[in-house]
Every structure is written in C-alpha cells, then in structure tokens.
C-alpha cells in the first residue's frame, strides 16, 4: 500500500509521518472498527469521485451515536469541513475535522437501499459478480451495525464524506458532480473512543448511469494532544463547550491508583456487561 504524503497542514496534528495501520477500502464495500481516543484517521479519495458513508457510535454505550442535526445546528453549518466537530446525541465530540482539502462533505442525503440501487444502476448479485456486486449503502450499514447488536432502529443520518450537495434559496438540492478529485483528503482526530462504521457505496444523488466503484484509503495515526490554539476547539465557542463535555466524560480516567489504565478499564467494563 502506498503511504500518502503528509501535507504540511497536517503535520502538527500527527505524531509520526508513518501510519500505524492502513487499508484501502474497495469501492462498493463496507468495514467497521473501533478507534481509541487520541488516534487520527486520514481518509483519501485515491481515484477521485469517491463517496464514504460514515456512522459513529460510542462502543461502551451504543445508544450514544452520531447526530447530524446536532452537529449542523451546534456549528450553524450545512456542510462539514476543517474546524467542524462531529457530535453525538449526548453533546460530546466523536471526532474533529482538523484538516480537509475539499471544503465540503454532506450529511443530509442518507444512502441508497438495494431496491434503489437496482433501479438506478441495475442489479448485480453476488452469484453473478462475486465481490463486484452492486451493494447499497443501507444494507452495508445494516451488516456492519449488526456485528455490534444494532439494527434498523439504530441507523441515523450518516456523513457522506467526499460528496457535496448544496441547497439554493428555495431549498432545492443540487449534487455537485465531480466534486472530489483524486488525492482529496481529510484528517479526523478522535476525541473519544468511537465505533466507526464505513461504506463506499454510491452517493444517492450520483447521476452516473453505471455503478460508481471508488476506493477510499484509510490510514490510522497517533494524534498529537489538542493544543490551546486548536482549529476545531477554537472555531466556535460551541466547540469549546463540546470539548468540555468530553473532559467531563473522561474525568478521573488518568488518576493513578484509582482506575486501571484506560484500555484495561474499558475492556473490563465491556466484559462485565455482555
């Protein structure tokens, strides 16, 4: 796997230039993993035209999940880019967008289900096409969240990274075709332990006539601690309060002799509550 070049704008957020782990998610696929607080996830649209659907949950309390309306209204924005934080429904920050080369990622259009994919791009079953089949974002999310005991009821509005949809003065929505160019990249810094659910299925408003299949390169780094002049914490006073809610959530976790180290204590909690 090619290691992406770290642009100067990202260097202050990363402890090393080399990722701790990397993986190229093929187009039309899905994946999920848990990221610890203090890690950073760099997402790169390797070929251009990618769409990365994303949902976030608290692995220790799966009822806490990414909340698009709270994320938008807390920051008075319709788009997501550098300086924005992705909020849970509990007023906490899952992750911060500390760097973004694109300027616009959308979070209101959802995804396509299998029926809609069939209508839009034609059917391609696993039997016919093996792993080049036409998967929908909805079923992809269902498969991944089911691995953690979640289901239909738990799917919220997802982020569609690398996709741009605007609304004009009358509210009419417009999909920006060709928005994401090859090498477009954003860096997410995780502010709490997070279950990350991803799918690379087509954006629901993509006008392509054939199923767009674009990979996304995921690289995991150790992030530097949040600095006083941090771009996300200081972009709005609301975010400073969001970080304060995270501080309350993690209070006491570093007290020697009171709690075991962070990872051990969380593993224990998980085992005790099956």
């Amino acid at each position, binding site marked *: 796997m090619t290691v992406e070049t770290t642009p100067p704008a990202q260097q202050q957020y990363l402890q090393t230039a080399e990722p701790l782990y990397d993986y190229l998610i093929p187009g039309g696929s899905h994946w999920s993993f848990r990221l610890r607080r203090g890690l950073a996830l760099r997402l790169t649209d390797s070929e251009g035209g990618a769409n990365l659907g994303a949902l976030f949950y608290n692995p220790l309390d799966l009822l806490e999940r990414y909340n698009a309306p709270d994320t938008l209204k807390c920051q008075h924005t319709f788009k997501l880019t550098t300086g924005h934080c992705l909020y849970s429904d509990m007023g906490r920050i899952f992750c911060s967008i500390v760097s973004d080369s694109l300027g616009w990622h959308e979070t*209101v259009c959802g995804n396509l289900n299998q029926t809609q994919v069939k209508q839009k791009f034609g059917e391609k079953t696993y039997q016919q096409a093996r792993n080049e089949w036409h998967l929908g974002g909805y079923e992809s999310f269902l498969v991944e969240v089911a691995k953690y005991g979640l289901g239909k*009821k738990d799917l919220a*509005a997802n982020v569609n990274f690398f996709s741009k949809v*605007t*609304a004009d003065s009358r*509210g009419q929505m417009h999909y920006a075709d060709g928005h994401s160019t090859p090498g477009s990249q954003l860096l997410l810094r995780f502010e709490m332990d997070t279950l990350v659910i991803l799918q690379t299925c087509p954006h629901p408003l993509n006008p392509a006539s054939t199923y767009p299949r674009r990979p996304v390169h995921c690289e995991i780094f150790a992030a530097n601690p949040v600095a006083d002049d941090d771009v996300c914490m200081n972009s709005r006073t609301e975010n400073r309060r969001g970080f*304060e809610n995270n501080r309350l959530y993690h209070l006491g976790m570093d007290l020697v002799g009171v709690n075991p180290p962070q990872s051990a204590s969380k593993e224990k909690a998980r085992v005790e509550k099956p």
Partner: protein
Amino acid sequence: MITLSQRLSENAKSSRIVAAGDYLIDVIKQGEVIRILDLEGNQAADTLFYSADDPSERYSAMDTIRQQGNVYLSTGTILRSNEDRPMLEIVADTCGRHDTLGGACATESNTVRYDLNKRCMHACRDSWMLAVAENEHFGLTKRDITHNINFFMNVPVTESGGLTFEDGISGAGKYVELEALMDVIVLISNCPQLNNPCNGYNPTPIEIIIWDC
C-alpha cells in the same frame, strides 16, 4: 406553498391542546388527517412518526428531503420512511415551510449551543424520554428517537453552506395538515426551548385536531 384547508373543526374526531413542554402520542389511521395548529404563533412542534404495524419503520428526514429534492417541507411533501415508503402527505399548510434539518433540542446539545449552565432546562428530547417511558405499550425506546420534523420552525440553509435558526415565519392561527398514508404513531413534543427564536423566546400551546376522513 400556502394551501388552505376546507376541513371544519366541528366535524373533527378529536381535538386537544398540548401545552408547551408537554408531549402527545397517538395513533392516526390510514386516511385520517391531523392538523397541528399554532395557536399563538411562532411555536415549534417537534414531531416524529412511526409505522403503527412496525415502529422500526419510521419517518426519515433524509429519505424525505432527498426524494423531493428540497430541504424544506410544505404542501405536497410526502413524508417518507427509512424504507423509503410514503407515510403521510402534507395536504394543507398556511405557514409555507417547515424544517427537518435542525433536529430537536436536548439538554445535552443545549450545553453546547448555549451554555454549560443551561443543562437543566427542559428540552424536547426529555419530553420524548418521558413519553416512551410512560407509554410502554408502543414499544418505543431511546433507539426510536430519531431525526424529527420541526413544524413551524424556520431554519434557512444558504447556498454557501450556512444554517441558522431564525425568527419564525409562523403566526397565530397558522396550521399544517397531514393525511396518513399508512397507520402511524405520532409523537409530538411541543417545544419548551427558551434560548433561541424558534419559539419567539415564549413557548405557547398548540392544538392537535384529527379528522377520520
């Protein structure tokens, strides 16, 4: 789009006042019509819908706005479910447009939006938590509290990607009417928010009127 209703309240099946800070949960049968009436003006009614047969099928803001290609709701809007099926249709609207991007207020998001010291002020999500706790027969839990409609609320989106909460465009006596296209559970929180202009800083009662045809 402004559309008047011909329905007369004296022919209604039921009519109830919901005070600010209270909730309403009820079943509306296919073919029935529900009117939400802003009695004193500038009041937000935070509303969720579920299929009465299978509440895991519920109102989906994303499917609704994406399929109509417009972020605002008004006459002619089909409210769609997470299965992309039609649930209700807006058949009359004297307000003009309604929001479904802003979500509901919660004590937790209030700490971020306004002040950490506003944590204990009443919020829509607390009304919904009480509603699901007091009405266990509907089988709803926190997992079912998803992205809602804010009837009468004005949340303009700008072309450059901004989003703001503005003074309401509703007024005393304005209303919205929806016809149920399947049997649905309706769950409304009459918004108690005191910190932004969505209620004109003065939460007031709404009236819920249901016709059976």
